[in-house]
Every structure is written in structure tokens, then in C-alpha cells.
């Protein structure tokens, strides 16, 4: 167990630092090395999964220095800070960390053009992987915050600020992430002050007094910002729009979600004993995250930004699941976290593929790409149906668990329990809106007539296609075997066992879905094929020659018609609701007010000094 842990934490970091020294022109070679390291790390993560786990110490003192040497003594003293906890949740998450690192590294070899490529891309990918593993395994809070903070740096370094807009997005991202890290330290300090052990596994803090609630909220802000939950989510859409698709697929789509939700799980399930009011508040945040972000997604034209808003919206499901606090809810939240990471990073990879081939960012400029990019189209359909919760895919399986969890939660007697129907309705409504916006995504990019300039496109880059297909296959696999294997064997080992009322046999249903699709195809080919006639697009009988005549976005203009929604969208576009912009305005306002006092006039400065002196004399003498 020791060796696996060392390899998955330190190997990527060390190789990453070595790659930093390799010149930029060997990009492909660096990518191949990074992929190999990621593969090794994934292999050892899998091996770690089959060990017993338990508490262990990083034990740097014993490992590298002989007994009695000064370095040995030195590191032994630091050992209480390097406790690791290899439990079933951590073991599961690090497998996914390894998987995403591997897939994104492979994809990036084919994808990253020099213009959007961050300096030392693979270095930061590998450091991210190592530090994510470290953060997930860490048991001592300080060690956890140490790794967690480094992830903020790599997140910032993975977006290249090559013009003012991208530089602004990078800045905003890091300020929000760094701010949340600072607030987490405050929470940590409060827990320390109250005398709780700073070990994540041993902590069990009741949220009965104000001060523990403050500590809880401080730590929760950290988890929310990392995962991108309302109202700390505002960096996610910006990052998704302006970073390269590999970076978005790696960080906000998968690893940041895994880590943020991982910490949320720890907060809710082991570190704190949650009271009813917190449950209510977090549920409200969860469902509002779902609805607000999906409404914003509906209005987007840039497909990467659309995905960014969905990366926020889906967090709402996970937050809702964990807030329920029942094994069923936890299982739903957890399963949804993995599913979301799979299909969302898949969607980003697909979006990156489209972007690389066409150079366009807006859905309206594209169309008909299914004919030239069949593999990407196929995987995008899988991802889009999955995120919209269509059976038998994995997104449905986890959402089903969350719905079941809410229904079961409704049997309780607390105030949040009584409102179960509200939570259920809003989560389901969010799912419907997700489907609506992904119809826009799919039909706008892949359907309709093809722009003739793209006729010569071919999907030849297997570095890019294979990771997408792998993710699509995993999405299908997790969905089809959800009730038979994934939930009982994998998820329940983490969340605790449970049973639920809603009967769902995923394999059988999948078989039925498959049969109906085949039957449909058969009917289509046998009965209708010969009766179908293909015509050029026309308006009022006149031929319409516009190259991309199929504006999927047009269908969604109706939501702008509603005056309330319209004004909300306008305010959101001006960033009135963005917590970053609000704080920025406040700080700069104070700054301006203070700098009025600094005229640069010497007598004024002298007066301050005399005044300061006098005030001190008056107070103390």
C-alpha cells in the first residue's frame, strides 16, 4: 500500500517538475511521457483499490533517511501532519483522477495548438494529478489544505492568458479560488481553537453553536468554490469559455468537481454533524444552482460557455444529494459526481475537437458536422443524453438515485423534509431544461445542412478521438450495469447500504431500449426509406441558399420574451450577480476613496504624522 501511495502522489509531481526543464519544441514527446506517467499512476491507483486501505503515514523520515540521522529526526517530528487515510471513498476517487489525467494527456497531444497552449502544459497536468491524489488521501487538515492550495496554482497555470479577455478570466479564476482557500484556513483555525483534532477522519463537530457553524460555512465555501456551486461558481463559465478544452476537461469538468464534492462529502458525512437549518440552506443552494445555471446555459451561444454553465448546474444535483444526508442521497451524489466528470469532460473534449477543426465558438456558425465528424457526433450524443438523464445511460442512473433519495427524505419530520416535493420538482425541472439546452447543442453543431467549407474535414486525429470514445463507452457501461453491478458493488461500499422503492433494473431496460432502437431502424429501412424525399431548404416556396440555415438558437429566443427573465438575463450579462464583480467594485471603491487622501502634498503628510502623534498622546497621557 505504501508503494502505491508514493507512486501516485510523487511520481507525477517529480516527472512534472522534470518536464518543466524540457524545451517547448518537444511538446509531443512531453505529452507521451506525461501519458505514460498517468497510465502508471492509474495502474497503481487501481492496485490501491484492491488493498485493505486504512490509516497510514507518509513517513518521509523512515523512508529516505537512516535511523538516527538529523534529517530522519527532523522529518519524524513533522509526521503528525502527514497522516493519510486510504478509505473506500478516497480509493474510488483516485482511480478517476488517474483516468482523467491519462485521457486528457493523450487528447492534448493531438489537440493543443501553440497559440492556446499554456506554457509547460504537461508539467501542470501532472502536478495537478499528484496533488489531487495527495489532497484526496490526506487525513490531516493542514496537509489537505497544502495540496488543495497548489491545485489553485495549477488551475491558473492551465489557462493561457494570450489576450486581455483570457487573461481576465485567468485572473478571476485564481482570485476566487485563492479567496476560498484563505477562508478555509479561517475555518481550520477556528476548529483548531476549539480543540478538535485536525484529522479529517477523527473529527466530528456538532453544528450547534454559532462558532462551529461559522467554521462549517468557511470550509463549505472552499468546497463550493472548487466544485463551482452557486454563488461561488462564476469562474467556471469564464474558465470554460476561454481556456483550452483540455484544461476545461481536466479541471473544472472533472478534477475540481471530484475534489470539491469529495470535500463536501467529508464535511457532511464525517467532519460535522449537520443540523436541520444547514440542511435546508444547502438544499436551497443546491436546487438554485441547478435552476439558475441551467437557465443561463439556455441563453448561451458559445458552446464552451454553455458547457461551463452546465458544469455548474450539475453540481447542484451533487450538493442536493449530499445535503439529504441519507445513504441513498449520498450514493446519488457520489455516483452523479463520477458520472458528471465522465460526460462533462467528454463533452469538453468533443467541443475542443469541433473548435480545433472549425475555429468557431458560436453554435450559430456551425451545423451539420455529424457528416464529417461521426465519431465526435456519436460520443456527443451519448454524453448529451447522459447529462440530460435519459435512460439507460449513467446520468439517469444517478439522477434516479437522487430522486429516490429526495422521496425517502420526505418521510422525515424536519422542515427541509416537509418541503421534499419542492426539491423533487425543481431537480426534475432542471433535468428537463438540461435536455432542452443540449438539443440546442447537438442540433446546432452536428445537425442541419453542412457549411461547404467544412466538407473536406476528416477525423483523422486518433489522439483526440480515442479518449472521447473511451469516455462514451464508460458512460454507457456505468449506465447499463448501474443497478446490477455499479451501485451495489462500488457505490454502496462507500455510502453504506440502502434500498429504494423505485424499481429500476438497468440491464433489462437497456436491453429493451436497444431492441426498440433496432426495431425502429428496421421499420425505417423497410417501410419508410423509399418514401423519403430530400429537398433543399426553402422559405415560402422560394429556395433559401444561406449556408447555415438551421439556427438552433432561434428556438430558444422565446425565453427572452418573458419580461422578468429578460431583465434577469440582462442583469446577469452585466454581471450584477457575480460575487466577484460585486467584491471587486467594493474594494476598488474603498481604494479610490483612500487614495484621495494621498495628494502628494508634503504639509498634509506632516499634519497626519503630528495628528497621529497627538491622538496617541491624548489617548494614553
Amino acid at each position, binding site marked *: 500500500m505504501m508503494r502505491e501511495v508514493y507512486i501516485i502522489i510523487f511520481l507525477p509531481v517529480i516527472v512534472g517538475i522534470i518536464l518543466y526543464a524540457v524545451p517547448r519544441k518537444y511538446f509531443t514527446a512531453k505529452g507521451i511521457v506525461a501519458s505514460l506517467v498517468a497510465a502508471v499512476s492509474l495502474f497503481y491507483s487501481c492496485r490501491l483499490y484492491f488493498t485493505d486501505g486504512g490509516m497510514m503515514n507518509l513517513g518521509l523520515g523512515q523512508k529516505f533517511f537512516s535511523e538516527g540521522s538529523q534529517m530522519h529526526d527532523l522529518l519524524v517530528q513533522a509526521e503528525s501532519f502527514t497522516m493519510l487515510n486510504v478509505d473506500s471513498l478516497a480509493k474510488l476517487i483516485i482511480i478517476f483522477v488517474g483516468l482523467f489525467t491519462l485521457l486528457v494527456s493523450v487528447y492534448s497531444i493531438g489537440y493543443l495548438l501553440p497559440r492556446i497552449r499554456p506554457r509547460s502544459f504537461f508539467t501542470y497536468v501532472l502536478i495537478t494529478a499528484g496533488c489531487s491524489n495527495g489532497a484526496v488521501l490526506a487525513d490531516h487538515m493542514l496537509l489537505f489544505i497544502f495540496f488543495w492550495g497548489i491545485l489553485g496554482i495549477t488551475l491558473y497555470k492551465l489557462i493561457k492568458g494570450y489576450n486581455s479577455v483570457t487573461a481576465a478570466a485567468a485572473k478571476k479564476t485564481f482570485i476566487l479560488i485563492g479567496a476560498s482557500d484563505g477562508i478555509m484556513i479561517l475555518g481550520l483555525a477556528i476548529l483548531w481553537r476549539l480543540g478538535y483534532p485536525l484529522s479529517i477522519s477523527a473529527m466530528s463537530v456538532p453544528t450547534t453553536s454559532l462558532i462551529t457553524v461559522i467554521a462549517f460555512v468557511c470550509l463549505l465555501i472552499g468546497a463550493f468554490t472548487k466544485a463551482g456551486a452557486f454563488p461561488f461558481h462564476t469562474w467556471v463559465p469564464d474558465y470554460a469559455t476561454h481556456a483550452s478544452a483540455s484544461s476545461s476537461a481536466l479541471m473544472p469538468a472533472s478534477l475540481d468537481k471530484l475534489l470539491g464534492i469529495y470535500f463536501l462529502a467529508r464535511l457532511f458525512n464525517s467532519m460535522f454533524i449537520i443540523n436541520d437549518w444547514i440542511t435546508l440552506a444547502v438544499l436551497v443552494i443546491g436546487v438554485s444552482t441547478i435552476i439558475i445555471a441551467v437557465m443561463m446555459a439556455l441563453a448561451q451561444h458559445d458552446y464552451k460557455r454553455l458547457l461551463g454553465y452546465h458544469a455548474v448546474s450539475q453540481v447542484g444535483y451533487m450538493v442536493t444529494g449530499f445535503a439529504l444526508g441519507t445513504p441513498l442521497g449520498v450514493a446519488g451524489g457520489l455516483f452523479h459526481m463520477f458520472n458528471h466528470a465522465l460526460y462533462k469532460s467528454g463533452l469538453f473534449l468533443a467541443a475542443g475537437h469541433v473548435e480545433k477543426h472549425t475555429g468557431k465558438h458560436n453554435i450559430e456558425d456551425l451545423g451539420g458536422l455529424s457528416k464529417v465528424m461521426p465519431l465526435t457526433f456519436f460520443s456527443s450524443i451519448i454524453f448529451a443524453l447522459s447529462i440530460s438523464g435519459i435512460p439507460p445511460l449513467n446520468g439517469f442512473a444517478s439522477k434516479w438515485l437522487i430522486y429516490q433519495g429526495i422521496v425517502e427524505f420526505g418521510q422525515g419530520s424536519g422542515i427541509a423534509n416537509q418541503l421534499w416535493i419542492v426539491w423533487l420538482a425543481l431537480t426534475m425541472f432542471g433535468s428537463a431544461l438540461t435536455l432542452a439546452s443540449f438539443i440546442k447543442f447537438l442540433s446546432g453543431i452536428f445537425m442541419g445542412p453542412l457549411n461547404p467549407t467544412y466538407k473536406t474535414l476528416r477525423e483523422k486525429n486518433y489522439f483526440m478521438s480515442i479518449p472521447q470514445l473511451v469516455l462514451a463507452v464508460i458512460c454507457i457501461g456505468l449506465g447499463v450495469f448501474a443497478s446490477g453491478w455499479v451501485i451495489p458493488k462500488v457505490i454502496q461500499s462507500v455510502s453504506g447500504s440502502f434500498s429504494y422503492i423505485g424499481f429500476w433494473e438497468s440491464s433489462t431496460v437497456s436491453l429493451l431500449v436497444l431492441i426498440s432502437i433496432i426495431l425502429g431502424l428496421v421499420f425505417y429501412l423497410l417501410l419508410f426509406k423509399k418514401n423519403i424525399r430530400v429537398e433543399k431548404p426553402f422559405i415560402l416556396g422560394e429556395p433559401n441558399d444561406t449556408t447555415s440555415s438551421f439556427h438552433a438558437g432561434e428556438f430558444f429566443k422565446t425565453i427572452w420574451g418573458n419580461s422578468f427573465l429578460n431583465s434577469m438575463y440582462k442583469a446577469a450579462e452585466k454581471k450584477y450577480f457575480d460575487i466577484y464583480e460585486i467584491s471587486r467594485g467594493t474594494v476598488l471603491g474603498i481604494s479610490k476613496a483612500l487614495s484621495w487622501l494621498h495628494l502628494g502634498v508634503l504639509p498634509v503628510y506632516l499634519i*497626519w504624522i503630528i495628528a497621529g502623534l497627538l491622538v496617541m498622546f491624548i489617548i494614553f497621557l
Partner: protein
Amino acid sequence: MSALIPFFVILPLAGAFAIPVFSGYWKNMGKVLTPILMLMLLALSVMFFFRDSAVFVYYVGGWELINGVPVGIQFVVDGLSVLMLSIINMMAFFASFFSISYLKKFTGDKYFYALFCLMVAGMNGVVITGDLFNMFIFLEIAVISSYALVAFGIEREELEASFKYQVLGGLASLLVLLGIVVLYWKTGSLNIADISRVLKQEGSSPSLLFIQILFIAGFGLKAAMIPFHAWLPDAHSSAPAPISAMLSGVLIKAVGVYAIMRLFFNMFELTYEMSMLILVIGTISMVGGVFLAIGQWDFKRLLAYHSISQMGYVFLGLGMGMVILSVNGNKAVAVMAIAGGLYHMVNHAVFKGLLFLNSGAVEYKTGTRMLKELGGLSENMPLTSTSSFGASMAISGIPPFNGFFSKLLIIIAAVQGQFYLMAALAVLVSIITLASFMKVHRYAFSGNLRFKDLKKFGEAPFSMLFSMLVLAGLCLLLSLLIIPVFRDIFLTPAVNDLMNLLNYSQPIIGV
């Protein structure tokens, strides 16, 4: 080892006189001699970390105690002095090495190096002397040479800044001198250890409060505490970059923070009122400085305001320790607070010095330091950009850089000591610091490529790069000071000397 103590003053002082005299024969004398001298001093000060006794006393001129009363001047090196000496001489080495290339844009570099050595001699003198009036003399040597160095560019802006600095600095010296005079009248002694013995017998009185307030105002002005900070943004942003690094990195610490620490911990008895005053002034500086900094568009001015804010952190840590000690609170928390303050001071010397050197490299290559006129420099100067990023992370308190750990100590100590407001403010200031350095990176180092000619606007020359990269490495390496064994070598002796009055006075006057 105590025989080596005067070399901290003799070596740079000799350099200061030799350089202008012999530069006529050998043009490069200053360029070569100054870094070598500073390296020797650095080695000497690091040697003192591994000393065999806690405190070394050197009797200048061989004047020993007479009946237990010091009559001559003594040089004293204890844990705190060693810590200060090593950061002063370390920054002096890097700044002087950086200057080798940087000064190509100036004329009269022999005067630059002479003044530089003089300033270092003054600062070294301040931290090793055990005599109050001697401290004042060395302080004047250091600040007067810094007045001249600030004006070194002799443009309108530099001269104006230097003039303001001189007037306000002169006022501060006056206040300090007045304090010393009253103290001498009251106790009949100028030796710090001896004064502390006399004061202990006398107990508190209004005149003592008066002296303490004079010292807080005087040294607070040197340390640029709000509301005595007004000279700093002008002076630190107008000086040549290596001098800014010295001023912000060590001068305000040696003549401001160190003096306050030494006098209030080791000479006066800690009182609750004065401790609270230092804590409050520190907090106001921390918050005010950062709000002023984030609105700036001049790279060096922004850094200068951050110096005020970061010194606020140092005073916050020290002040909390003083308050806890003065009410006989939990000693462990006081240790943590003071260690956090000292640790942050060391870290600040490194990262702020580095940031000023970065700004110098940027200005050297592009000719401007206005953020809005810069852009895309990470393409032009990747190594400068990297080192600047490291320093920015350190000052913003992001792991694994050193600033994270010192701020962590301060924040945890604040919460432990139930200074909840201070803890929350420290976090807030840390966030705004991060935001303002993200602003620097967004405008200067990323964004549109402004200087398209990569050959002309390429990487900085070797001597600059060397200093910057080593300092960036130190930003990472100093994180190790959090580990107990390193902490015991470098920080704990200083903390102990501050907390225990006897540690300091016993070896000097035997009481």
C-alpha cells in the same frame, strides 16, 4: 566568535570608503567588490546561526563593565540580531549582484556602490549595537545614505520623492532622538540592557509612556506604519530597483521593526496599552495598505503600498504576542504569534525584494513600469515572469510558497488568542493581496503581446536573472522553516530572546 562581530560594520564601511577612492584606478571596483563583500557578510551571519553560545557581546574599544555598569559601547549578537543580519546581508548580496547589469543605465556607479555599502553598514550597526544612542547613529547612517540613493536617478520625480523622504525621515529621527534624550535624563544610561534594569526598579510613569509613544511614532515612521507611511510609496517607487528592494526588503525592517521589537520586548516592560497600540497600528496598516495598493497602476508603487500592508502583518503577529504576554495569557499562543510575525518578516524580505527586482528587470527592458503599458511579458521574459509569479504566490499566501506558512501561523495564532476580527481581516487582506498581484500578472505578464520584437525585448541579463531565480528558489525553500528542526535553528532563538528579557540582558550586564 565575538571578535568577528565588528566586521559586520567594518567590512561595508571600509568598502564604502575604498570604492570611491580607488575607482579612479580600477573602474569596475564597486561592481566587483560590493557583491563579494556582501557575500562575505552573508557567510559570516549564517555562521552565527550555528553558534555555540546564545549571546555574544563585543566591547568596543575594550571598555569593560565597571561595577556592573557599562561605560563603553557594546555590540550584541543574539538570536534576533542573527536573523536580521542574515536577511540584511542576503538581500544586500542579491541587490548588489542585480545592480551589476542594472546600473548600465546610470552614471556614477561608484557613488552608488559607496552609498550602498554605507547603508548596509548602517543597518548592520543598528541590529548589532547594544547602545541606544549608537543605534541612533547607525540609523542615521543608514537612512541618510538611503535619502541619497532614492535621489540617485536625479530626475524631477526622484528628487521630489527624496525630499519628502528626507523631511519626514528627519522628523522621525527627531522624535527618536527626543525619546532617547528623555530616557537618558530619566535613567542615566544609554545601554539597552542597563536601561531595562533601571526601568524595572522604577515602575511605570507618565514620562515612560511619553517616551514609548515617541518611539512608536519615530520608529513607526521608519517602518511606514499608517498614519506615518506617506513617504514610503514615493521613495520606494522612485529609487533604482535594487535600492527599492533594499528599502522595502530590509531597511524598513532593520531601522523600524527591529528597533521596535528590541526596545519594546527587551528594554521597556510590556504593558497592555502599548501592546494594544502596536497591534492596532499594525492592523490599520495591514488593511489600509492593501486597499491603497490594489488601486495602483504603477508597478513599483503597488509594491510599495504592499510593503505597508505586509509590515502590518508583522506588527499584527508581534502585537498579538505582546498583548498575550502582557496579560499573562497562553504562552504557547504568544510564541506562535511572535514566530509568525518574525517568519513573515523574513519571508517578506525575500519575496518583496524579489518583486522589486522583477519590476526593475521589466523597467530595464521595456522602459516603463506602468501596468497598462505592459503586456504579454511572459513571452518576452519567461524566467522573470516565472520568478515574479513565485513571489506573487508567496506574498499572497498560496502553498507551497513561504508566505502561506507565515500567514497560516499568524492567522491560527490570532484565532487561538481570540483576536477573531484580526484573523478575519488578515484573511481578507490576503485575498485582496492575491487580487492585486493577479492584476499585475494579468496586465504585465499575460495578455496581448505588446513588445513584439522578442530579440530586443528579451530576457533580462545574467546578473539580474541569477538574483531573481535564486530568490524565487528561496521563496520555496524558506517554507522549510515551518518544520520544527529548521525552526529551532533559525526562528526559535529569536523568539526566545524576545520573550525572555534575561536572555538578552544577562550576558551584557550580568543581571
